Every structure is written in structure tokens, then in C-alpha cells.
């Protein structure tokens, strides 16, 4: 029987993988990939709670907002990354050591 816990376990796994990517990568775009994994985990958890615990679809509205937020954030982050690359010719976060640009 597939219950709420199964979906939550997938959510925890995706969250931990995304966190691992954020902590260990030095390429800014790879960090963004980890961040997207975490947002997906959050959205999946909301949908799972809506399905099993609430039995209405109010939780799905939050997943919808999370998807919109993640899209907007990744647009801004990618613009930042490209702006930084145009200036510094690198997107490795450990080489961006200048505050003044």
C-alpha cells in the first residue's frame, strides 16, 4: 500500500541530494541544479499532503506557486550567472572573490 510516507521519503531523498549538490559543487549552474531538486521535493510534499491528509486540492495551489517561484528564481539566477561570467570569465563560485566586480 502506497501511503503518505512513501512520497515523503522521496521528498527527503531529493532534498538531501539537492543539498549535497549545493554544498559540493563549485560551478554556479550545478548549484542551481541542486536548488531545483529541492524545490521539486517541496512541491511533491505539498501535493502528497493534499492528497493523503487533507483530501482537498488546496495544497496543490501551493505546489503551483512553488513551480512559478522556482521558474522566476532560476531566470534571475541564470541572468546573474551570465552577468558574472561576462565580467569575470568564470562561473566557479570559489573564484568569485571580488566584492567590487
Amino acid at each position, binding site marked *: 500500500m502506497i501511503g503518505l510516507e512513501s*512520497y515523503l521519503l*522521496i521528498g527527503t531523498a531529493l532534498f538531501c541530494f539537492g543539498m549535497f549538490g549545493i554544498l559540493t*559543487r563549485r560551478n554556479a549552474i*550545478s548549484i542551481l541544479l*541542486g536548488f531545483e531538486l529541492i524545490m521539486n521535493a517541496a512541491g511533491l510534499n505539498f501535493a*502528497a499532503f493534499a*492528497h*493523503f491528509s487533507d483530501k482537498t486540492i488546496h495544497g496543490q495551489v501551493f*505546489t503551483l506557486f512553488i513551480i512559478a517561484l522556482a521558474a522566476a528564481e532560476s531566470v534571475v539566477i541564470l541572468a546573474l550567472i551570465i552577468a558574472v561570467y561576462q565580467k569575470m570569465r568564470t562561473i566557479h563560485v570559489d573564484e568569485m572573490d571580488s566584492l567590487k566586480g
Partner: protein
Amino acid sequence: MNEAVFLFLALVTVTSGWCVVSLKNIIHSAFALLVSFFGVAGLLALLGADFLAATQVLIYIGGVMILLLFAIMLSEKVTNEDLFIRAKALPALLVLGALQLILIKVVLDAPWNERPGPAAAMEPTTEILGRLLLNEYVLPFEVISTLLLAALIGAVVLIRKEVRRRRRPGER
């Protein structure tokens, strides 16, 4: 039947999620992320959230992934061997492994308020979602549309080359 589909989707999602953070080639990890998005879309469909599954495919796979691939190709040579900060991989693995175990224990032990009875009926959710968005959640809806507009303008402003350079009288 449902169990088999769930297990398959869970396996796909988690495996490709691990590939996203462990592969060396950034293009490969971007495509692993794409597979993981598809897995999550399938799981959402299993949860009866048909509109969300479609949105996941449209926005994430059609929008965000294309954007990511463009940014990757605009910014860096694709095969990059030193993608990781080597020194920090092991502590991060240990800490996050412990965190994962704690989370699994919490998820399995916590008394979730799971309402008994038959599962929610599998009905089309698009109409109800639309009504909710324009009645009960109309303020967050408008706020998030403003946010999307701000993100759009912000991205253009950030990427644009400096065009309004100040010109001194002697210069051409």
C-alpha cells in the same frame, strides 16, 4: 498496478536525482535533472494532480531546462573535470547522510494526520484550481504575477550590455 508504477517512478526520480549531483559532465547532470523532473511529474499524476503534472512538464521541462541548457552552453566549456570542491565532498556526504537517516526516522515515526477512508477521487482538478486561484487565493496569485514580471525585467536589465555609456565632448 499502482504500486508497480509508483516504485518505478520513485526509482527513476531518486536515481536520476543522485546522478544530477554526482555526474562530472554538467550537460549529463542537466539531462539527469530532466529525467528527475519527468519522474516527479509522474508522481504528481499518481497523486491525482493532473494539472500540476502538466504544469511541471510545461514549465520545468519546457522552460527551465531549456534556459539551463542555454546558460550552460553560453558560459562554460561543457566537460569540466574539476566540477567538485573535492575537499568538502566527504564531510558533506557524512552530514547529509546523517540528515537523511534522521529525516527517514522522523517521517516513519511521526503520527501524520492521515485521514482514513477512501482516497480522494481522481477527478480533473483544473477547474477547481482555477476557481480557487481567482477567489480564495487571488492575492497570492496577483503577487506572484507581479513577481514574475519583476523577474523578467530584472533578468533583461542584468544581462543587457551597457549601452548608455557617458560620452565626453571630445569622443566620437
